[in-house]
């Protein structure tokens, strides 16, 4: 399972490294979203710094949709999905690999957006470990749920419109918890306030990674 997942993650990341869709489209989209949020809130830097945690995570959520769409669409041409199924790779490994590739891209993206939030909104990071922990845990949850829904919507012609509708409400707890942890980790927050939310993220990750490992095979059969 682990070897298979490394193979699949390596394949997806190689495709990304060669096509640079994430770097040239998804990351700039995230930055555009940050700029648009700033326009929506007006030039008040105090307000922007206050809203920074939520805006960061909303931007991450939107970018996750794009990254998952991309992760699905690389399999949708040339019968790649059937090829993967024929390859004899363990479905659980396939799930972990696809999710890991999405997660790796999201981590890079979050670094870009994090710098954007600090520079554009004037957010001051007081407790770096909280910020990093929330990003890592949130990313695992988003990648796992995103990959699951991506696989479910893989064969659908209405994939582009249906995926955000199905995925974003499911990811609501990540947005909630991630935002709270960021509030705790930025200037003016209380450090101890973050830990229950980190636990919530751990529970969310554990549940959906486990669900994904169990059901990814059956889902692929139905797509």
């Amino acid at each position, binding site marked *: 399972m682990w070897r298979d997942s490394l193979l699949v993650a390596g394949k997806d990341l190689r495709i990304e490294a060669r096509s640079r869709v994430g770097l040239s489209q998804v990351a700039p989209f995230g930055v555009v979203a940050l700029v648009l949020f700033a326009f929506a809130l007006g030039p008040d830097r105090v307000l922007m710094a206050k809203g920074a945690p939520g805006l960061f995570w909303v931007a991450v959520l939107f970018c996750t949709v794009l990254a998952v769409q991309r992760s699905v669409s690389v399999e949708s041409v040339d019968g790649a999905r059937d090829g993967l199924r024929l390859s004899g790779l363990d479905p659980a490994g396939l799930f972990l690999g696809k999710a890991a590739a999405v997660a790796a891209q999201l981590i890079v993206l979050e670094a870009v957006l994090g710098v954007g939030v600090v520079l554009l909104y004037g957010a001051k990071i007081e407790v770096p470990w909280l910020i990093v922990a929330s990003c890592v845990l949130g990313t695992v949850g988003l990648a796992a749920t995103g990959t699951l829904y991506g696989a*479910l919507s893989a064969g659908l012609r209405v994939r582009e419109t249906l995926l955000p509708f*199905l995925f974003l409400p499911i990811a*609501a*707890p990540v947005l*909630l918890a991630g935002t709270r942890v960021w509030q705790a980790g930025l200037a003016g927050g209380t450090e101890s306030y973050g830990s229950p939310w980190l636990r*919530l993220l751990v529970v*969310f990750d554990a549940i959906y990674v486990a669900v994904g490992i169990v059901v990814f095979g*059956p889902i692929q*059969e*139905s797509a």
Partner: protein
Amino acid sequence: MSSNQTVSTPPAPSDIPPAPSDTRPAQSLRPPAQSARARWTTRIIGITALVATGFTVWLGLWVTPPDVTQGNLVRLVYIHPGVAWVALYLAFGLAAVSSLLYLWPRTRSLFWDRLAAASVEVGVVFNVCTLISGSIWGKPTWGVWWAWDARLTSTAVLLVLFLGYLALRRVPAEPEVRAKRSAFVALFAAVDIPIVHFSVLWWKTLHQGATVLNANLSPTIHGSMAWTLLLGFVALTLVFVWMLLVRYRIGVLEDWLGTGELDVALRERQAEGAAIDEDEAA
């Protein structure tokens, strides 16, 4: 894919002459029969639901007294918790269980799929009613139509999740494929709801605690109000069951129509072919 292969639109079923070459019994042109017992069960439950709802309205609006602190506003309590019970526990619980039973290989049957679909659809209606009745109560009591409290928020998220389920069901697919896909989505949503609930529970909670199902299970209201509240639960549960049965039957008919239409189109083509043969012969 098969719909793309039919070039012309078929005429209404009544216009189609029976194909002379087709000697099969026209079984699939008639809707699948419903047993007399099923028909009567549905009817009796429907009538009971109507009577119980009527009694609840009468008791709730005329017989019971207004509340000491809330005045006439308390009368919403006869509807709102009942609707919420149906929407949040009964309908979506049933949908989750039947989705699970569909996915379980030993109990896999389209029966569970249709039951889940009917349950979600009726549940969505009740969910919307929960939010509306809650808003009507919230405006005079809390001063706002909407409060970001734990239960309100998780109810709203639940609604969005199951609207997604219904959207997915509308995507054309083979019944088995659709059933499997929908069952997965229902299960993911069911897993998410406790997480959503606990995460929003840590916000400041405005909603009052559970009145009937509190920790020691002793109702904190008494007399005619308690009985009306209880009757409201029964009435709304009956309404739910009746709507579920009717919706299930509609689901059966829809599936029949899906296959029946193809059959009608086939017969029409065969009739055309026969007519051309006759022309050539003449």
